[in-house]
């Protein structure tokens, strides 16, 4: 709780914003602008990671900024879960920036400055969500995140972008205003506080069905977690350029959603309270339903990015499932899955974007034999897919293992079945892609221009994230340590 770490929190929020101003000033000079982006993202990485040792040692640095409403300040408190989320987001931003440079230049996208600026603002908002010390702060940055990513989703500026943007903004804003906001106000009226408190704040204030209703408002109000039926914004957001889909709709935005859900369950309701009452049980069923149905839909998509999007919907519900099982070990699994899924899914999106940039292909049926032309890309894709399925040596295995252990421990047979079935479904929609990419011959008519690998920055980026996916399997100490701290404080 040193003043140093307070400053670090503030800097972590401000650095991306200052970087955004820098990018705006350098708008005519692409090289300078991209240097600023890389520099900013690197600096953010250092700042966020410098907080890790303190948090591991038990520090919970706090920072109170301005008092926005009487008794309700914009305040920040770094706790293990937020630390984990911030680490993941800040680690992937520089890599994604490298990728963006290759992608945006390779596809000659317009308005690149606006793109980088919105990206930086979105990252600042994601850090704000991660470090939020109360629900109000979380809500504020949650909305900033939605709005700052809207220009990114609609970047192409054509009719389909407008349609996609409409669904994106419509669902995210309306769920947050219609459900999340009243849930927050209700919590305030009932409990008198909005601070994230270990063990929850609602004990003795609300009970029975009311608690279930409040949980309902929170779970569907946090639309970013893409629980069915409020998931439709995620496939709609796939009209965005791939770096946006990669970092925002596989990492920052969706993880902000499930992160908020875990945070609400652990720090507002309290695991124990939810265990005692049965009014929250439905969450398990909804999460399980989402996992299975989204996987089935993914199976039927031919567009690669849409398949990945539905896979994300399904994977996000793993995190919710992990939290809803309410066993400490499954909550731990949920926390780790935030990181594991991030590394795997960003790799998959990077690969999809690499294919689009090099071969201008978007459909899965066009991918026969592409593994020979783009071996690195498809290798990375395979690693990402393994992580999604949950096979060693990829990070997804670890988190799935913990969630499964939790389900077995609490004898939630349904959860166990869901996890097994979804593993099979995951395999069913990823393995054929890998198989046809490496083992089938290219269609004669589609050989086209004889492309090779994507531009170098893209390949570097996707190799790095694939490496991270493997690395996390062999060295899961850091996320495990943070997640264990979460369990300890939650008790």
């Amino acid at each position, binding site marked *: 709780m040193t003043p140093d770490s307070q400053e670090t929190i503030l800097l972590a929020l401000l650095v991306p914003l200052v970087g955004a101003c820098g990018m705006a000033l350098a708008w005519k000079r692409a090289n300078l602008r991209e240097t600023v982006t890389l520099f900013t993202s690197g600096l953010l990485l250092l700042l966020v990671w410098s907080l890790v040792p303190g948090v591991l040692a038990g520090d919970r640095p706090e920072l109170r900024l*301005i*008092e*926005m*409403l*009487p008794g309700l300040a*914009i305040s920040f408190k770094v706790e293990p879960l937020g630390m984990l989320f911030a680490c993941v987001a800040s680690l992937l931003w520089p890599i994604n920036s490298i990728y963006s440079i290759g992608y945006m230049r390779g596809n000659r996208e317009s308005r690149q400055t606006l793109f980088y600026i919105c990206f930086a603002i979105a990252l600042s908002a994601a850090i704000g969500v991660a470090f939020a010390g109360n629900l109000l702060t979380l*809500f*504020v940055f949650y*909305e*900033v995140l939605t*709005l700052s990513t809207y220009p990114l989703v*609609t970047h192409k*500026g*054509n*009719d389909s*972008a*407008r349609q996609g943007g*409409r669904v994106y*903004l*419509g669902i995210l*804003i*309306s769920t947050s*205003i*219609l459900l999340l*906001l*009243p849930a927050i*106000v*209700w919590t*305030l*009226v009932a409990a008198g506080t909005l601070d994230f408190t270990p063990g929850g704040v609602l004990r003795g204030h609300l009970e029975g069905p009311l608690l279930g209703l409040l949980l309902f408002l929170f779970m569907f109000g946090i639309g970013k977690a893409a629980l069915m039926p409020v998931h439709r914004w995620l496939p709609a957001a796939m009209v965005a350029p791939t770096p946006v889909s990669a970092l925002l709709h596989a990492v920052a935005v969706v993880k902000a959603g499930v992160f908020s859900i875990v945070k609400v369950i652990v720090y507002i309701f309290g695991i124990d309270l939810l265990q005692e009452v049965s009014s929250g049980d439905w969450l398990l069923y909804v999460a399980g339903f989402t996992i299975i149905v989204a996987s089935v839909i993914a199976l039927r998509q031919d567009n690669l990015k849409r398949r990945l999007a539905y896979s994300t919907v399904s994977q996000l519900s793993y995190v919710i499932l992990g939290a809803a099982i309410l066993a400490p070990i499954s909550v731990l699994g949920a926390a780790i899955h935030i990181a594991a899924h991030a590394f795997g899914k960003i790799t998959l999106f990077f690969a999809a974007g690499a294919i689009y940039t090099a071969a201008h292909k978007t459909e899965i049926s066009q991918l026969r034999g592409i593994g020979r032309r783009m071996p690195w890309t498809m290798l990375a894709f395979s690693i990402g897919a393994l992580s999604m399925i949950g096979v060693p040596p990829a990070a997804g295995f670890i988190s799935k293992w913990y969630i499964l252990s939790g389900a077995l421990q609490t004898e939630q047979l349904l959860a166990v079945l869901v996890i097994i079935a979804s593993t099979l479904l995951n395999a069913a929609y990823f393995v054929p892609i890998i198989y046809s990419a490496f083992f089938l011959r290219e269609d004669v008519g589609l050989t086209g221009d004889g492309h090779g690998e994507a531009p170098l920055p893209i390949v570097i980026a996707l190799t790095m994230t694939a490496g991270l996916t493997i690395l996390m399997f062999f060295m899961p100490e850091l996320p495990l340590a943070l997640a264990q701290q979460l369990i300890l404080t939650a008790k």
Partner: protein
Amino acid sequence: MTLNMLLSHLPALQVVVPLLAAPLCALLRPRHLAWAVATLTSWVCLLISLTLVAQVQAGGTLRYTFGGWPSPWGIEYVVDLLGAYVLLIVSLIAALVLPYARRSVEREIDPEHHSLFYTALLLCLCGLLGIVITGDAFNLFVFLEISSLSTYTLISFGRDRRALTASYQYLIMGTIGATFFLIGVGLLYVLTGTLNMADLAERIVPLAESRTLHTAFAFILVGVSLKLALFPLHLWLPNAYAHAPSVVSAFIASTATKVAVYVVVRFIFSLFGYRFAFDQMQLDWVLLPLAIIGIFTASVVAVFQENVKRMLAYSSLAQIGYMMLGISLDSVTGLTASLLHLFNHALMKGALFMALGAVFYRIGSVQLGQMAGLGRQMPWTLGAVVAGGLSLIGVPLTVGFISKWYLILAVIEQGWWILAALVLVTSLIALVYMWRVVETSYFQPRPAGAVIAGEAPLSLIAPTWLLVLANLYFGIDTGFTIDLAGSAAAALIGGEP
């Protein structure tokens, strides 16, 4: 010594300065000179209101008697906390609108009428400030008419001939409203023999059962509701806002209805007393349904408007409904929400109407179809529209969020969940109609053959953005506004005899 004397006369000067400057403007033929005098006057007014706020915060309610006649006999000016706050809003908007006016008026109004236009604007300012500051019920009527008559004139300056019919329609309804108000005041005078509002408040306490008092209450409320454009007495407002010159729309949309809300608050809470109004007259049963229907219908109608100024006019009706909803909740939180929204709505609507004025300045229209593709050609102007729209929707970090938060808090405190849902649903409708503007201006190509519109001149953009920044600032650092609204609300409800 002279400074002290000046300071003690500030309540009078607040009204007298624009009143004297107005004829001066009319005499000044060179139009830039008229503009300069008007602008200077508005800044002096702002300075006076700021000083008054400081004085009230330091020393409590100010009472100023005219001509040495002590209060129940002479006309008295009263500046309490809430009054100072509303004075500040009105003069702040005036001080921002007038610098903006020069270019916009040059574009929209014939040169030979400029001096008269500024005269009318200053008279309107004088009337609005007078309504707020006076402590005398009949004097309030006079100022109400000063502001109304000048508003009718201002609206009729619109380029479109429909401005004339809009102004006429407003004149008829406004005069009926003012006359109703006058009847109410007359009945109060018959009953008590006084016109001083503080004195009235004391003398009507034993008369709570009197039928004359009930009639007076009804007449005054209906009269003010006409000025306020409370549903279903709102018919004049959309036309008036839509066809008035841009400067006038910006000015009256963010001040006139706010002042009318202030009058309602003043009469309900400090004159009649809220126990009389709510327990005896069952005001909540009248006000609440009207507010709800008003919010809902106006929001829905706004979605289908093609003229963006008209759309914002309907949105204003909905916002007036929010303020009335807060009042009718009959709780400190509800009143706080209304008073907060009074200030916040002035900021957002001011910014939005000014931005639309800048659009009109460049393309000569505010039809949605004509605004297609403007986002790239006028980035600052449309940026202001987006920011103002976000505030209207109630997105965090804007003032709109703060108002909405308080309104929902007040409603949930009463346990009225359906009402909370309604407030939230209507803010989503605001999302729909604002997003129509955003999508049209950013995603559609310019209509074929349309002029290439450059960014509006700085003198239009700067005041607009000052208001936009105020929207953001008071949405983040809310200490000042919430404290003021909260303590004013507590004083109004707690200060019941």
